[in-house]
């Protein structure tokens, strides 16, 4: 088998893994679980604890007796309670009525723990260690949360990626290959950390004991968060290197948070944990995620991880995705209006820009940006997807979301797609869960009220950044007392658990998935978010809408032919890699491809006197160069 895989690797042009990648062994997974469980035991706070590898394979889930039993078995309306289930409650909207996932009381605690572990693993890399606390800081309505007049978190919306309905993220049935989907997207609840061995990211650990799938809305104090303390105990011996932790990384001069809990706060000695078998609780199977047997993690970039090095497709070293049969996923192909050669060129140039771009979120300083780049057709078909070597895994899915979002909302069909989506939703067997979810035409109407009756049908080129401008709880972003952005929930309702159009497009998918895992729904969510029997095809938003920067549409002359999405580094870097990569490819190709004509771009629009933005390239873009204003005039 190994030989066959090796042969395959050679055949498909995978250059082989030059560096010895680290991975968690099953014994180490057990150790991590026992360290965390010992801390939970010492605190008398039974927890659900999960360990995953870097690509999202769930390696172990331990549920302690009595964990999260405040509301045993709470079920959604109309479904009988299941007392065997331990559930947690999603945080409430602090400002008003709960909508979206806010206040949802029926999420199994194992799913919350898995989501937190995946978040720790996915947001991190060998150059940055981010925790769920970091996530909580960068997805809220303000950055920093609670700072009046500050614009939203740079990754506002990333929590709704890696969705259980994603057509990109794989499921447990795909063997060990990743990236795996995450039950609830990404988590902002403290208590999820990345795990490292010898300075290399090998996975993540997540814990939940407080019954609350929460978010820290006050990042200016220091909490003693039970979940965080338990998960932190799990990381001991697998700690993130101190110099790459979030608290050594600034975004616009602000340091990110890694952990409010410190080793000294632990109630147990993680060096001498109780044996897992001696702790009241059990390793439990989780439908769709975990078999019930603790297993070893995959070495990242081993072909079995689903990520593999590739030396020739784009003429430079990159990482591509492979499936469990070692078949390459997302090799460059032609799409409507784009040739495979053009797609290849755009990808090559984008990866090249990334290679020379100064990273925003990585240590040591002056590392190059590490990202995933996705190129899609005008209808969201993946034409190519490739990564730089150490890009954080979350960007795999997010880059595709951004590309699809830019293509979709730049399309003249977007408005009718949204109407058809509502038609399909109303025809679904589950009635509209109002007020938790809204019809998506609600947002269309708001946008048309603001931008004009032809909004999303007039072919204005919408970048991911422009979409984000319109998808914030306030418009302009961060300014209190202003109405919400047209694609957002009402300002009083919008939270990271209820973003608006983004969530409402996939709300039913997420709920269906959770019910399926609970055993309350007969079928899982399909591997295609936002199913719409529409003329635009099935891939339009097949892994969900994304609302933060890093994607631009691709035009040939005046015609929309696709989009490019980038994710993994700072949002300005993501913007630049997409925008400049496309521009440079276009210049080289000379085939009429380019960024959207300037006159069609979203930054021509000034709704309510507030000009939308198209892209924002970083202050000091490149390594080894003082060039600034690198996107000017393009």
């Amino acid at each position, binding site marked *: 088998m190994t030989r066959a895989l090796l042969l395959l690797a050679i055949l498909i042009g995978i250059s082989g893994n030059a560096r010895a990648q680290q991975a968690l062994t099953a014994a180490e997974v057990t150790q991590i679980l026992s360290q965390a469980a010992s801390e939970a035991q010492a605190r008398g706070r039974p927890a659900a604890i999960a360990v995953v590898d870097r690509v999202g394979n769930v390696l172990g889930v331990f549920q302690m007796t009595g964990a999260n039993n405040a509301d045993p078995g709470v079920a959604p309306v109309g479904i009988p309670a299941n007392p065997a289930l331990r559930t947690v409650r999603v945080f409430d909207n602090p400002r008003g009525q709960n909508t979206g996932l806010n206040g949802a009381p029926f999420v199994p605690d194992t799913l919350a723990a898995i989501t937190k572990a995946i978040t720790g693993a996915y947001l991190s890399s060998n150059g940055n260690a981010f925790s769920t606390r970091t996530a909580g800081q960068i997805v809220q309505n303000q950055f*920093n949360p*609670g*700072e*009046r*007049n*500050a*614009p939203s978190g740079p990754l506002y919306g990333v929590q709704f990626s890696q969705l259980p309905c994603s057509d990109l993220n794989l499921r447990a049935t795909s063997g060990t290959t990743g990236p795996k989907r995450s039950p609830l997207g990404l988590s902002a609840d403290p208590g999820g950390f990345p795990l490292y061995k010898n300075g290399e990211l090998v996975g993540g650990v997540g814990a939940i004991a407080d019954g609350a799938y929460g978010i820290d809305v006050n990042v*200016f*104090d*220091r909490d003693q968060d039970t979940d965080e303390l338990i998960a932190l105990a799990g990381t001991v011996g697998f700690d993130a290197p101190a110099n790459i932790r979030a*608290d*050594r*990384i*600034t975004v*616009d*001069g*602000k*340091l990110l*948070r890694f952990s409010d809990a410190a080793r000294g706060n632990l109630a147990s000695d993680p060096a001498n944990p109780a044996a897992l078998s001696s702790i009241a609780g059990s390793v439990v199977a989780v439908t769709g995620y975990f078999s019930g047997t603790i297993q070893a993690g995959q070495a990242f970039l081993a072909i079995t991880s689903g990520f593999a090095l590739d030396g020739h497709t784009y003429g430079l070293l990159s990482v591509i995705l492979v499936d469990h049969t070692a078949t390459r996923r997302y090799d460059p192909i032609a799409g409507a209006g784009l040739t495979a050669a053009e797609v290849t060129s755009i990808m090559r140039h984008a990866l090249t820009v990334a290679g020379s771009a*100064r*990273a*925003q*979120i990585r240590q*040591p*300083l*002056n590392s190059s940006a590490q990202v995933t780049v996705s190129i899609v057709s005008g209808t969201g078909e993946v034409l190519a997807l490739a990564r730089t070597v150490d890009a954080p895994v979350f960007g795999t899915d997010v880059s595709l979301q951004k590309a699809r979002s830019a293509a979709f909302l730049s399309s003249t069909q977007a408005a009718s797609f949204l109407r058809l989506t509502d038609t399909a939703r109303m025809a679904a067997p589950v009635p509209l869960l109002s007020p938790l979810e809204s019809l998506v035409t609600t947002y269309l109407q708001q946008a048309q009220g603001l931008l004009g009756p032809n909004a999303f049908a007039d072919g204005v080129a919408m970048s991911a950044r422009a979409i984000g*401008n319109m998808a914030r709880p306030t418009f*302009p*972003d*961060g*300014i209190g007392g*202003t109405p919400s952005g047209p694609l957002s929930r009402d300002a009083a309702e919008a939270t990271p658990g209820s973003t608006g159009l983004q969530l409402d497009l996939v709300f039913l998918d997420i709920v269906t998935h959770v019910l399926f895992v609970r055993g309350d729904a007969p079928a899982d969510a399909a591997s295609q978010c936002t199913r719409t029997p529409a003329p635009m095809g099935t891939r339009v938003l097949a892994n969900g809408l994304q609302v933060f920067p890093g994607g631009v549409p691709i035009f040939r002359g005046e015609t929309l032919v696709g989009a490019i999405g980038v994710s993994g580094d700072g949002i*300005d870097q993501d913007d630049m890699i997409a*925008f400049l990569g496309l521009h440079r490819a276009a210049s080289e190709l000379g085939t009429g491809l380019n960024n959207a004509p*300037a006159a069609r*771009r979203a*930054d*021509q629009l000034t709704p*309510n*006197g*507030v*000009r*939308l*933005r*198209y*892209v*924002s*390239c*970083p*202050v*000091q873009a490149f390594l080894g160069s*003082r060039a*600034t*204003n*690198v*996107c*000017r*005039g*393009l």
Partner: protein
Amino acid sequence: MRLIAALFWLVMSPAYADDLAQLRRPGVPPREVPADAPLTVDPGAVAPPSRDLRYEMAPVPDRWRLVETIGVPDDPWNPYRQSTIKGDRPIYKDYFFGFSAILDTVYEPRSFPVPVGLQSTGNPGDNDAFGRTPSNVLSSSLIISSAIIKGDTAYKPPDFELRFTPVINKNRVEVDEPRLLYPDPSRGTTRTDQFIGLQDAFLDYHIRNVSDRYDFDSIRVGIQPFISDFRGFLFQDNQLGVRLFGTRSNNLWQYNIGWFRRLEKDTNSGLNDAWHEPRHDDVFAVNLYRQDFPVLGFTSQATVLHNRNREGEEGFHYDKNGFLQRPAPIGFERPRDYDVTYFGLNGDGHFGRFNLTASAYYAHGKDRNNPFTDEQADIRAYFAAAEPSIDFSWLRLRLSGAYASADRDPFDRKETGFDAIFENPQFAGADTSYWIRQAIPLIGGGGVALSGRNGMLASLRSSKEEGQSNFNNPGLVLLGGGADLDILPELRFSLNANRLWFADTKVLDTLRMQEGISRDIGWDLSAALIYRPFQTQNVVLRLSGAVLLPGKGFKELFDSFEGNKTYYSVLSNIVLTY
């Protein structure tokens, strides 16, 4: 005239008349006139009166009415004539009223690196971080100062002084990019604002004289000016406080002991906001001046200032425009307290032909919450500056040098970047200089200024006026030279050239996630014309222009939409004083 009046007043009092016989300079033995010395070269002259001779005395109403009777009328409109509202004549007994009014108007076109709006830009196609740099300020202040003073101040300090100085300011700023003036980009690129600040409101009470030389102890309570050293490097402000001060040994020694509770500043005028609760920030100052030390003509000063800041508890403080000021939006952005003691040695004067101003400070203290580590940190920072100069008739040549220590590792437990309490440096060209005059936002590195307005230190504060001191900063090295040319009695022309560097850029590297930013800030070149058409301070016209020629480090931090590599600062200023 006043001398005669004072003499009359003296001799009126029998007690003084008795003392008159003993009148002599304190500490100096009476000089005996040698009996055999020729009294005069003119034998026909009247012999001088004997020292012990009693004067003939005639009562007169008082010396001020006396001058009126001899034809010096009160003229409130001409400040150079006798005027009751200028304190030349009492309003009641020996109570005087002093009034002055100054209209100070500045028009200031300038350019500095400007970020494009984050959520919204001024123009389509703004795809980058750096925006259009030109902007201008028009600001006019009417400073109205009134005082009631008890005591004739011609010979002795007043018994008390009650002073009240409100300042009415109106200002207007125009910029080219939204979100620079207000956080809300829809509020546009022009801002007009006004404010009434209170710059003086104090009672000065003369406690006692301690010598025949009128060495004294006084206490002053209220909003009052204070300067920590000769050039305002550390703390120069008009602040609410209590200050005991006085002199000894015929004014050879001077001392100040003060406690100030700092008032909030109005954001756009920079004036004292007396209508708000004061800041939770105290300055305790003790200093001692010694004149003619170490040489005649040079004054030395030793000082200790302690700054106790307790703004960690107050929550977030936003300025009037809506930008966060405290804590500064850098690092962990968590509210913090700090205590720092400054030990200073300062001097000003001349050594023979050479003039010298010099200052040295050592800052020692604790930051309760280092913004980069979230832990307590020791503050250990220092500062030194010197400005030697030499005069050749109408020409003065100056050299300036300053060093402010930098923080070399923001993540350790020491903060070694020097920051002042409230600097107002009269140094190296002062507000003529680009670097000192203009605030430069640290674009992409947080909502702080690289250096503040009317400030020299690159201290990365949210603002000089409303921010807290920040000891995690890149420090500063300044070397410069200049010349003051008194071309005409009415006209002075000044030239300055300063070369600027950061002392260490590690903090900037961290804030910008950009390793290896050069220390080189660049050249700051400026010229100023000061024209006083009447050779008085009543009408002063000032025009100055400065350019910053950015060095490598500045270019690695900033750019402009126009691609301009030079930034300018023009100051045109009219000061009319009554």
